[in-house]
């Protein structure tokens, strides 16, 4: 249907209200206030900063462990220790190696994982709070609005089309059909978080890939209310080993929070060989280890969630600036995989983007001529300082845990260079080992069911993510060639989408003599695993109608 779209214009459009996007918005608003106060021209207004957030409210889609390195927040909000909803300082740090029944604490916590001076936080709460600060500055925040498509202009970006609302399952307008806006901005900031959908499109179209492709891990998390006293607030445990084999990159975490809350989860790099590996099930198994079980027994599940993390590090960062646009935070893969921290770099990148944007607005030039300043600032900041030292860290483990440890140790003493620099890598989906299937669907009746008390099946967990979507809308998960699912994939990989999706979105069902892919789009928790891990790269995760998705209260 040809739609008449209303046009809106902003100075700056920020897509995604996470720590990077809000860090950018808040810092820019502060800079603008100072700029205006100094009498400099042109006069600018924070009201011309628009922030789009696809979630129902601020923080709804924010999920992280999380241990916050406060340096980013300290710069953004100097009195954050008094005003931010920090849960508890880290009091007790440990790294554990797990076997099936035992846990060995490493005698020394490796320095990258030493968290003294850091805080355990709920990123959802931090972002909610930051959103409040941003709003106070007069910035225009739009929740339940998604960036659906980029508006291209010349060699760059001129803005974003927001999603159409009120479209039925078959693509027809409903009674309350509301077309998306044509939102133009002098600078568009892509802060969509891990594997942003607009970012993916931009990077592909303008060939912005870094030296290595971006690679990701999937994190599965539960928030529990435990029986009092099992662990103290501030207790931090990072685990390696069981239930993951030494050929898999990942581990688990358990953090003690206030009010008897426990944050726990497990992360696995989406670079494993077995296409039938189920990350959700691995996490459920993790909970049955005596080390974890004794903490959770008698407690209740409060919330569930899943999200991917960008592991690739410095060499996998895309070019971060084009005419009219900047890429910041997780969308630009600024996570420090060695320290497992990305919030502080996200905030810092947002602030550096803000500084760059102010210059661009002052100069009246938003082309790469001015915007390249952003990358220069990154290069001169602690973002590069930190990420450069671990530039080959994640890639080092591609040969397995033990080899990786050796590489990592050598990198540690050589400022990141190690034995091979740069360590090249490929996209994770290339790691699947093909199976010699005979074309029959893998029996799903033996999938993990859980005991309903300590462990849960995916549907029960998804229910606890608070995820909901307007039911009557087109599926936001676009599979470019459904035939591949029922013909090639059945044989070659056994339809791994049924396994890697932590929300039971994908199912292969019998149809006549063959099979077809059934997509339960409404279960989606917006983790992006499918787009990343599908072996044929035919799944495009696109934004559903705004407001849909999980509700990560307290996560």
């Amino acid at each position: 249907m040809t739609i008449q779209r209303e046009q809106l214009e902003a100075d700056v459009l920020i897509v995604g209200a996470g720590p990077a996007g809000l860090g950018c918005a808040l810092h820019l608003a502060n800079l603008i206030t100072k700029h205006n106060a100094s009498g400099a021209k042109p006069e600018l207004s924070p009201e011309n900063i628009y922030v789009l957030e696809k979630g129902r409210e601020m923080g709804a889609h924010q999920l992280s462990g999380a241990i916050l390195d406060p340096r980013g927040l300290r710069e953004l909000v100097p009195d954050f220790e008094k005003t931010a909803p920090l849960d508890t300082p880290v009091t007790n740090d440990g790294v554990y190696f797990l076997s099936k029944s035992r846990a060995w604490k490493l005698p020394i916590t490796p320095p990258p994982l030493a968290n003294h001076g850091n805080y355990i936080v709920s990123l959802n709460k931090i972002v909610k709070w930051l959103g409040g600060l941003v709003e106070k500055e007069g910035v225009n925040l739009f929740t339940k609005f998604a960036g659906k498509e980029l508006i291209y202009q010349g060699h760059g970006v001129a803005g974003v089309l927001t999603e159409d609302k009120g479209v039925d399952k078959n693509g027809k307008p409903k009674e309350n059909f509301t077309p998306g806006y044509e939102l133009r901005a002098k600078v568009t900031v892509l802060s969509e978080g891990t594997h942003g959908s607009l970012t993916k499109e931009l990077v592909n179209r303008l060939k912005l890939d870094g030296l290595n492709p971006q690679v990701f891990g999937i994190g599965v998390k539960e928030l529990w209310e435990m029986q009092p006293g099992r662990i103290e607030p501030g207790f931090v445990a990072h685990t390696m080993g069981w239930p993951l084999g030494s050929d898999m990159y990942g581990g688990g975490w358990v953090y003690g929070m206030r009010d008897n809350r426990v944050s726990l989860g497990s992360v696995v790099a989406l670079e494993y060989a077995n296409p039938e590996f189920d990350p959700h099930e691995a996490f459920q198994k993790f909970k049955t280890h005596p080390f974890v079980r004794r903490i959770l027994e008698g407690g209740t599940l409060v919330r569930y969630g899943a999200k991917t993390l960008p592991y690739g590090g410095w060499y996998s960062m895309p070019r971060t600036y084009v005419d009219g646009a900047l890429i910041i935070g997780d969308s630009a893969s600024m996570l420090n995989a060695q320290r497992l921290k990305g919030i502080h770099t996200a905030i810092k990148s947002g602030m550096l983007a803000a500084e760059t944007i102010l210059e661009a607005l002052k100069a009246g030039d938003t082309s790469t001529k001015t915007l390249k300043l952003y990358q220069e600032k990154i290069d001169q900041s602690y973002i590069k300082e930190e990420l450069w030292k671990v530039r080959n860290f994640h890639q080092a483990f591609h040969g397995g845990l033990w080899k990786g440890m050796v590489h990592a140790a050598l990198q540690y003493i050589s400022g990141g260079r190690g034995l091979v620099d740069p360590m090249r890598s490929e996209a994770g989906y290339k790691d699947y080992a093909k199976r010699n299937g005979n074309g029959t669907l893998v029996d799903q009746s033996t999938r993990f069911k859980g005991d309903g008390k300590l462990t849960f099946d995916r549907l029960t967990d998804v229910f606890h993510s608070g995820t909901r979507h307007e039911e009557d809308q087109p599926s936001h998960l676009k599979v470019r060639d459904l035939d591949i699912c029922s013909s090639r994939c059945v044989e070659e990989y056994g339809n791994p989408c049924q396994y890697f999706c932590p929300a039971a979105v994908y199912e292969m069902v019998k149809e006549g003599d063959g099979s077809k892919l059934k997509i339960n789009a409404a279960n989606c928790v917006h983790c992006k695993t499918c787009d990343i891990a599908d072996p044929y790269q035919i799944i495009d995760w696109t934004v559903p109608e705004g407001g849909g998705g999980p509700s990560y209260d307290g996560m």
Partner: protein
Amino acid sequence: MKLLVIAEQRQGKWNNTSFETLVAAQQIAAATSGTVSAAVVGKSVAALAEELATKDVAEVLLVEHELLESYTPDGYCTGLKQVIEAATPDLVLFPHTYQVRDFAPALAAMLGKGMVGDCVGFRNEGGKLVFVRQMFQGKTVADVTFMGAAPWFASFQSGAFRADLLTAHRSGKAPVNAAKVELKAADIRTKPLEMFKEAKSAVDLTQAPVIVAIGRGIKARENIVQAEALAKALGGEIAATRPICDEGWLPLERQIGSSGQTVAPKLYLALGISGAIQHVVGMKGSRTIVAVNKDQHAPIFEIADYGIVADIFEVIPALTAELQKTKG
């Protein structure tokens, strides 16, 4: 304790939940050594009053007036206010019907009192009556007590009490007394017009007394007609879990669960439904739950009163046949 039940009639026919309320009143009276009176409101409803008098009540109040022939909130409030002021009951009970929702809270407020509506039960705790009602869409229940002096007002949810437990009057018949009410046409501000049934009324599953719900076990769209026949034989409505509606086999309005309707019918028949939590939250308040599934470990059995581990395609026709047989 003096109880007064306001029974509901329309055009000479009872709303049968009134009898459930009478049962509730009898039980409360038994627990508090109280008496139960019943009232019927309308015009030319003496026969209905006589019918009430055959139940185990102390007295029947016949509240008749020209202007009470058709229900209006003003008419009922003004009229019943006078009845209550004259009869001085401690507790006034109603069935929680659409009509009661329309006037009863205002009636209570006119007397400066509050109403506890849509209760699913009560308890007598050492002389203090505690009313139980659902909150947060059935996820929780709440104990509610009245504050201040009588009269108190409460309504009971349909199905909370069993009408068949209503006992007859011990010595034949209770006295039927006319309750005088004064009403003027000017008191009644809204004018009721004709009632009608809609040709294509949207289904309201929350009002269905019986629901037959199908899940993935139904396998194909062609099989739904069997379940519909069973629903018809039971006098109920067909409903489904989300996957069925996702496929378009039944319209979205028939969906039960966290993203569909929440229901609590007298009888819920779950056919080929596994019992995922998304569905269960929409129906676990049902009074009687029957589950049929060939997987004995299906979670649905945890909340079922009756379980049948068998092939639904053998059970459905057997049930339908049995029902049609015994109906005659």
